[in-house]
């Protein structure tokens, strides 16, 4: 490059202009290629959801689902005929309080009960758990206490223990606590989450490190105790990190299939939405109409998460970029 510049300097400005033009053109071509690849990729990312939504309005497997590639054109009319001219027929199959698929499969729990379960399992432990994680993060980042580093290392070691290797004993523990039943099943999904999560605590701790300690010192001089410092300063100031971590764990809990299925698989009143959806799939047998209900359930289980993500995408993506974490 250096040599080129040297040889170029005496050449007329016309050549320079030409070079700039060709550079501009090559950037344009690169931009076009970039857009083509990214839009094609976005299509692949979104198509399954489009298919899922279309299939959820399908009263019979024979119509939309097997033939749909791009747009359900001539099949809509015949599909509506199958569905008694009711667009939400499949949703009604699933949700009906008396003869609905949900009531039939769970033996009495309506879809609203299942949704309420899912909400309880994802809101209560997340709200409380994020706050307990944040308080631990505060203690790690801003307070000096005897044993802090040891405790930190011990918690770090706990991450090394994979969930599946201890889940059998966790099941036995919950069973001996008397948590495993239709009425107390929620305890299994809620209580362990109340104590906070190590990863969340680490990420908030990382966030708090960036905060100046002088604020806390100033508050201390003004006579504020740690309790007031935490609620008055730390929680509001770390709100972006707390919100983002809370939203991510909410989505994780809302989608928690494995935990609910292995612990509460036989207690149908305590199921959450993902378990219900998988149970619909087991229940289909030869009844093609139930496929529509299966995807109606699927859409219901992804919709709240999509809406939340749509509203808070800036905070979530920003937090992911910041902490380098991922769900």
């Amino acid at each position: 490059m250096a040599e080129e510049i040297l040889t170029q300097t005496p050449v007329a400005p016309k050549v320079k202009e030409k070079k700039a033009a060709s550079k501009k053109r090559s950037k344009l071509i690169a931009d076009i290629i970039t857009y083509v690849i990214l839009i094609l990729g976005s299509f692949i990312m979104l198509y399954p959801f489009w298919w899922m939504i279309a299939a959820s309005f399908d009263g019979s497997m024979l119509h939309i689902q097997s033939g749909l590639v791009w747009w359900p054109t001539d099949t809509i009319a015949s599909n509506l005929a199958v569905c008694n001219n009711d667009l939400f027929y499949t949703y009604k199959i699933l949700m009906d309080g008396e003869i609905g698929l949900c009531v039939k499969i769970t033996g009495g729990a309506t879809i609203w009960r299942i949704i309420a379960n899912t909400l309880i399992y994802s809101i209560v432990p997340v709200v409380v758990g994020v706050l307990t994680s944040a308080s631990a993060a505060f203690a790690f980042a801003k307070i000096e206490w005897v044993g802090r580093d040891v405790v930190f290392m011990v918690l770090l070691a706990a991450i090394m223990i994979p969930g599946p290797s201890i889940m059998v004993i966790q099941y036995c523990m919950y069973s001996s606590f008397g948590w495993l039943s239709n009425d107390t099943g929620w305890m299994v999904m809620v209580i362990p989450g109340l104590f906070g999560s190590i990863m969340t605590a680490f990420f908030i701790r990382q966030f708090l490190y960036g905060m100046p300690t002088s604020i806390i010192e100033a508050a201390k001089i003004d006579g504020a105790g740690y309790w007031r410092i935490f609620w008055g300063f730390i929680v509001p100031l770390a709100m972006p990190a707390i919100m983002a971590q809370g939203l991510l764990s909410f989505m994780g809990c809302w989608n928690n299939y494995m935990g609910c299925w292995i612990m509460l698989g036989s207690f149908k009143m305590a199921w959450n939405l993902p378990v219900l959806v998988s149970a619909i799939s087991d229940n289909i047998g030869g009844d093609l109409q139930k496929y529509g209900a299966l995807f109606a359930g699927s859409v219901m289980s992804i919709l709240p998460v999509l809406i939340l993500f749509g509203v808070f995408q800036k905070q979530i993506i920003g937090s992911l970029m910041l902490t380098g974490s991922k769900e």
Partner: protein
Amino acid sequence: MEDLFSENKAVEVTADSTGVAAAKKKEKKPINQQKLQDNIWGWAFCAPLIIGTLVFVFVAFLISFILSFCNYTSNSGATLWEYFGRLSLKKNELGEISPFYNYIRLFITSDVVTGSGTAVTADNDNMWRLLFNTVFYMIGIPVGMILSMVLAVLMSRDIKGSGLFRVIYYIPCITSTVAVTFTFQNLFKSTGVINNLLGQTIQWTDGYAMKFGENGDPYWCGGLLMKVVVIIMSVWKGLGGTVILFCAGLSGVNAATKEAASIDGANSWMIFWKVTMPDLAPTIFYTIVTSVIGGMQIYAEPQLLFGSTGVNEFVDGYVAKITYYGFFNTSNKNYSYGCALGMFLFVIILILTLIQFKLQKED
């Protein structure tokens, strides 16, 4: 805190009147009290997390470890605590005490006959095949990383709407595995969209596509297309998270170094390999570690895609064996064996992590 403040004032007053030495002596007290406060509140703020981790992770781990040498099953007719009252070591099928029997059973691939009859019965689901499936699914990790690297580089270009692309690519990451799995199951049906597009009737998931294992062909061919579907799905689902990680890594690459390299005559390919990649190394390492640890625990995807109730040794991962013996074996849930299986998984993941950290250090 209130009295601490007033005491500080008192120190100031005495310092004025009685001199420096006395002041120093008195100052010690508030500092100690501050330390006490620090210790109390530090532990208090951490207490919930510590208690939760101790009870639900460490105690559970310890019990798992102990019980893996015992014989605790759902037929024992005792709760966990009751069983601890009459703990007994595992006996093998001949009635001899053999604490490592649960672990030995893991490695037995066919019945072992001793002098006095069949001593050890092999599981129907061979652990090695499940481990093979688990590792096979990790083909998705390099594929996903290369794809997301390309996408991240494209998104980091100076174009409009790169934020929107990040959002779109991240959507699969946040949606329910269950919903997505059933969609893919139907997309890959023999009459599904994928076959419609390809104009083929490939049996992706119906039955045991390419089940060569029984004709003397190597067993890894069994269910090959089903495994491919699982890989496609997990790459599709995990892509967005890695893309965002790499975008974050790319934005951290030193722009000045890049410019210096381009002035020195490096083309963009060389800049990518010599400047960008070394800066991205920590991100790549982090991604590999977390993906391998996560990949070892694959469970829901194959289980849901192919709807097996027991263990399907053509597609299921290792964790399916734990869930089967610990939860779904209706005749007898063998908790102790589940614990042994879990301990083995822990050791595998520990070794893998240590190897990765060692490699990282050598670089």
